[in-house]
């Protein structure tokens, strides 16, 4: 059995931690899948899917670490006209942060629930907002 749902979110700032833990758990709960896996995947290349503890201080530290690793004023190559878009690329920082965080996470599902640690919250992390974003949640099993 495979169930796919989409979570939609409009980010409101350039960088943002959006906690989707409850939504993902509810999708699993309502999926009818008792045992299997759940995959959480962003539809974008300038966002990340991150699992971490949902504390403002942890979010701040993660944000600062990523900003130090990928400063916005770095001499990126991805900063030129893109004929296929008709626009200039200027979001390399978002692409690189996305590459660092990864674009998905996966959890086991047992007895109709996600198996996870108590501190394991799931985030969509925005790196090039504000934008309308989509996250695919696929529940697979029996």
């Amino acid at each position, binding site marked *: 059995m495979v169930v796919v749902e989409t979570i939609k979110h409009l980010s409101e700032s350039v960088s943002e931690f959006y906690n989707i833990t409850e939504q993902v758990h509810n999708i699993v709960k309502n999926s009818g899948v008792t045992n299997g896996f759940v995959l959480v995947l962003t539809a974008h290349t300038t966002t990340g899917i991150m699992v971490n503890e949902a504390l403002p201080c942890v979010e701040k530290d993660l944000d600062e670490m990523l900003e130090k690793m990928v400063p916005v*004023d770095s001499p990126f190559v991805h900063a030129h006209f893109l004929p296929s878009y*008709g626009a200039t690329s200027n979001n390399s920082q978002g692409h690189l942060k996305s590459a660092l965080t990864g674009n998905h996470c996966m959890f086991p599902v047992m007895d109709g629930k996600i198996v996870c640690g108590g501190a394991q919250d799931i985030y969509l992390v925005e790196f090039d907002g*504000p934008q309308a974003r989509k996250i695919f949640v696929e529940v697979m099993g029996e």
Partner: protein
Amino acid sequence: MLIDMHMHPIFYGDICENEDEVNFRGDTFGVWKQGPMTDEELFAEWKICDLTKAALLPLDVTTAEGGWIVNNDQVEKLCSVHPEKFIGFASVDPNRKDALDVLEKAFKEQGLMGLKLNPAKQKFDPNAECMEAIYEICEKENKPIIFHAGLSWEPNTPTEFCHPCVFEKAIMNHPNLRICLAHFAWPWVREMVMLMIKYPNVYTDTALLYVDSPEEQMMELFTKDMGPMWFERCFPEQVMFASNGPRFRMFKIKRALDKVPMRDFARENLYYKNALRFLYGKEVKEW
């Protein structure tokens, strides 16, 4: 206050009911991989850079391309929904037979605030005889004109009509007509500077991100393409903030300009006061 004087509302949801028309706009303007956006999405971007108002620019390419890249009725509609946010411009194809009627209607009945033209895209010479009547209407109605100038990424735009000096005769002949040669006429920045120094009725805008990152492009423009003091010394009332959305994201242009050193009076002029002067032709204390 921050006013963006150069936005193309190609993907604004309120005027995207017809998919074929939206595709025509994208293909004709030369922008892809974007789609209709809600007001919520649009204004989220405004909010993070405190944008107050934006000039919406249509383009009538009826004889050259067989349609409009957003028409005057659509701009009027958008302005009626958000009169506090949008400044509606008109366009007209100078080669159409009813050009003057279209323009008179736009100014007198639709309340549009200025005229947008692109000689390269619309295939006309700004010094052609047919333009005189258009300039006269704009002068009589106290409406400014924004011309595309400099590099154009729109398909089918020969550069010979994009050079800023092409416009000099029209500028000379109409000293009371406020004319913006958009995009700093890049790469002809120094020619643009020359025109602003010679003619106080000439304006330009910052809607350019043709090479490099926003930070690099704006710093190059204000400190290398021009001497670092030229803007505030020589033409502090003639450059307007603009983004050229949806090609470039306005908050990134603003973020880059915030890092360019300039005095407070010059920054205020750049961010909104010059736009008000351009729109109304005089110092506007309150809006």
